[in-house]
């Protein structure tokens, strides 16, 4: 990615219950990430909400269901709607996941991992090229959590991620919580993993906490950020000029003051490494 991107600071993944508090605490949120899918095929109330948010914050659309890893190709209708939304918002960048969410006419309903093969890299590159025919605004890609280990891997997770970013020439939305979660569930060292990533491609970070279920750490976006994730964030920010950091809280929503505390911790990490003033 050669396009210079602005530094946005520390923000929040927008959820409807935050609306009132956001405007009461305007200075504590530098920018917002919106879930693009919530504004596709949506009632006029969502349109108004989008206009209101756009009038006060820089918005970064975050898509969930483009299914960039689908070997069958993209859903043209979804892509058209998504592209129209992103053009309307006109953000410095937008994001999607390295995953597939549908195949054979079945909507899986969540982000499913791809086999770590050269064919999967080719598919991602082909689909991303198709997206770029509709949209010139830079796309950055997010690493997902996974429980199911895909057979037939031709590379490890870090190599796969690096290969995709390099071949598709995309920035990385590094979800440090996802990285930590996978490292716990699949037994690897997240710091070694970071050392294998092209960190110069990191544009944005996600962070939050999850919960345990039957010895599996779940990326439920339901808990305060654990110390291990703060440590990983610190390591990444120390090594690369991250442009934006987003707290992604969805469940068990605490008071806005609690969220603001987490945002301030993240901002302090950016300041410590001279990434934010």
């Amino acid at each position: 990615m050669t396009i210079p991107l602005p530094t946005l600071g520390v923000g929040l993944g927008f959820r409807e219950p935050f609306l009132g508090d956001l405007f009461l605490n305007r200075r504590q949120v530098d920018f917002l990430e919106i879930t693009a899918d919530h504004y596709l095929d949506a009632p006029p109330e969502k349109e108004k909400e989008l206009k209101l948010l756009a009038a006060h914050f820089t918005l970064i659309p975050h898509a969930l269901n483009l299914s960039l890893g689908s070997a069958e190709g993209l859903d043209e209708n979804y892509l058209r709607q998504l592209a129209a939304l992103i053009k309307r918002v006109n953000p410095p960048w937008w994001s999607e996941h390295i995953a597939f969410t549908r195949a054979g006419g079945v909507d899986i309903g969540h982000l499913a991992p791809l086999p770590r093969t050269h064919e999967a890299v080719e598919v991602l590159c082909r689909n991303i090229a198709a997206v770029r025919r509709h949209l010139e605004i830079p796309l950055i890609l997010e690493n997902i959590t996974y429980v199911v280990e895909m057979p037939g891997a031709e590379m490890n997770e870090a190599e796969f991620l690096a290969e995709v970013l390099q071949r598709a020439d995309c920035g990385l939305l590094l979800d440090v919580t996802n990285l930590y979660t996978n490292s716990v569930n699949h037994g690897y060292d997240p710091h070694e993993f970071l050392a294998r990533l092209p960190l110069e491609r990191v544009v944005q970070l996600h962070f939050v906490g999850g919960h345990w279920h039957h010895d599996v750490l779940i990326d439920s976006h339901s808990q305060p950020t654990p110390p291990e994730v703060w440590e990983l964030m610190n390591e990444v920010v120390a090594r690369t000029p991250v442009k934006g950091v987003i707290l992604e809280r969805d469940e068990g929503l605490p008071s806005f003051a609690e969220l603001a505390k987490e945002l301030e911790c993240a901002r302090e990490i950016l300041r410590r490494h001279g990434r934010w003033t």
Partner: protein
Amino acid sequence: MDLAKTQQILAQLYTNSGWRRRFFTAPNTLGLSSEEIDRLAPLSAQQVDFFAGSLQRKRFNEICKLLPLTHRMVGKRFSALFREYAETNRMKKPREEAQAFANYVKKHGSIETRWSVELLRYETAWLETTRPDCRFIIRGFRYDIKKLVKSFLKKDANQPTLQKQPTLALWFRLSRQGRLRHLVLSLPLWRG
């Protein structure tokens, strides 16, 4: 086996419990080639079950958010009904899914009282208003639906205050992008 075929099989494994059971016990009965079976044989049944369970929970949580009245009305049977529904109904967009599940509850949920049916109809009408092209909806009710909902939410869900009173509920927008307005008009008390 190419990625497209692999993903088709994975999508079935993640979303179709019957198919998943057969894949891990008798894969030859699924019409898959021996190459396809061999390639995916190393998949962990435990991991796939775990992921499939999380998908189902996500789907269920979405439904609970979209149908709070129905959830409260059906009570403990709501999750069992959803499991039954999900066995035979593929995932849809949230609004369509909630609508389809509400229909399923109406048909299979042993909703016997008239007021329960009315609550279900009232809630699904609200769902319809979230369609981007929705300009006008009108529904007739035998009870004063506003009072029924209030009482249902306040008191014991099994014994809401029932007041037979022919009622019309309207939802409308004056323009395509206009604010959604909601009116409930009850006729004079029905003593019959």
